[in-house]
């Protein structure tokens, strides 16, 4: 299809440039490209995409797939939206930081640490976001096995 030429080209270039590190790349529809990537090479891939003009990291979606945690990086030039998906084992979840190429990603990465407990290597120290300062450590609300339990003696405000 000729109207998907741009999308196909990005996909093909990515597969060529990062041979072996990129898999399952699909052009879903106009302006949407999805791919899985190796976590270790994530900053490189994003930097490469940024150099191609996709210089806006729209957001990062963290997810919990059972044995793996992971994150989808939605990166765009507001026309083509490329979603780069990386996974990391639940036992020791770690992802590299992408702040070097996207300084605006600070709050998205903090959110990954706070809500899913994915350690971001290279994230500067700072106040947590979005959970309160006194939220108990080791509790990650967006993990599938997390359930809200009201503390003993108090009831949830309705």
């Amino acid at each position, binding site marked *: 299809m000729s109207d998907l030429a741009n999308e196909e080209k990005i996909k093909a270039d990515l597969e060529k440039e990062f041979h072996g590190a990129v898999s399952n790349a699909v052009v879903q529809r106009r*302006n*949407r490209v*999805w791919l899985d990537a190796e976590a270790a090479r994530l900053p490189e891939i994003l930097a490469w995409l940024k150099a191609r003009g996709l*210089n*806006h*990291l*729209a*957001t990062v*979606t*963290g*997810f*919990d797939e059972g044995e793996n945690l992971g994150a*989808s990086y*939605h990166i*765009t*030039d*507001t*026309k083509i*939206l490329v*979603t780069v998906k990386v996974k990391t084992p639940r036992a020791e979840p770690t992802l590299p930081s992408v702040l070097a190429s*996207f*300084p*605006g*990603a*600070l*709050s*998205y990465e903090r959110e990954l640490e706070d*809500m899913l407990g994915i350690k971001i290597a290279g994230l500067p120290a700072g*106040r*947590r*976001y*979005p*959970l*309160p*300062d*006194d*939220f*108990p450590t080791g509790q990650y*609300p*967006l993990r599938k096995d*997390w359930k*809200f*339990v*009201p*503390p003993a003696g*108090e009831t*949830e*405000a309705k």
Partner: protein
Amino acid sequence: MSKITIPFGPQHPALKEPENFMLVLEGEQISGATINLGYNHRGMEKAAEDRTYIQNLYLIERVCGICSHSHTTCYITNVEELAKAEVPQRALAIRTLFGELERVHSHLLWLGVAGYEMGFETLFMYTWRDREQVLDCLELLSGNRVHYSINTIGGVRRDITAEQKAEVKKRIKYLEERTQYYIKLATGEPTVLARTQDVGRLPYDVAIERGAVGPTARASGVARDVRKDDPYLIYSQLDFKVITHNTNDVFGRLVVRALELVESYKLIHQILDGLPEGPIAVKVPWKLPAGEAVNHYEAPRGEDIHYLKANGTDKPERLKVRAPTLANLQSVAYMLEGGWLADVPLVIAAIDPCMSCTDRAAVWNPEKGRTEVYSWEEMRKLGIEHYKRRGVDFGRL
């Protein structure tokens, strides 16, 4: 001069919603600013996983009071994409109409807030009175002023009659005149210029670097508008301009929003004149096939992006919402540094922040706080002691 650290929020008259900026002042000038967020976290993304798609529609509408239509439309586009539903053209046109009415309502609100923050209360009073016109339009069409609930999965809930069309056009005509007056006022009044020009500068490179979106980015010359770049609904059939400005300051953001109002009026007339005939909704199954979709939407404040993952049941596996304010807040710290204390409220307001959008989830704190945070018991004890000193004993209660 010695440095003073001033807390700006979470409770502060200039902020309508809780957020916190710690400002380090040298005299009247700011030498450092840090942003603390999360006071409004309501647990929406987690809550969405326990609700059906149609229930989530109403949950998502409550992410934000102002962009209620933006969030639901963005969410519903994902749902319909996964369900492979063919939404009728008339429904899409009505959604677009609401999107533009919402933009008008939001930008007029912003204009008033900006006036208030720069100490120009007359502008605030004028714009908010005129904003009633567009709220009346929304009420006329949907029955509600703020949470319109016009969207439903597969279409919209209410049709538009010929009388409604005429009434909306009449009110928009009035607003067009008023907006011309505001544009004259905002670009001509010397005190407004004195307060907005060269305030809160955000150069083009920094706007890109920090991921600014919407009018904030467009005022820095970044011609980015999802409506144009990745058209959704019926925007590809409509004729409008992307407004940009190159002054990179609060004045630019003022001008961009004012001119966008004019574009929105144009769009509303186009939509109403060319409203396609046909049904307004189709049936969509309760259960969605497994799959992923991501869509963005140009909300009044900027790009709003939703990600949805379905797992074959009637409830989503994962829903992610990123509201425009979160993207813009990274730029605020940059804009504040080196500025004047007097400009802080205006600079913050200039991105049109919406904190309830930004912090979507709170998990209520089950454990006792740090040392400086009082627990309920400590608070009660303190209160009792305080009144004991004044001769009233509440200890027995």
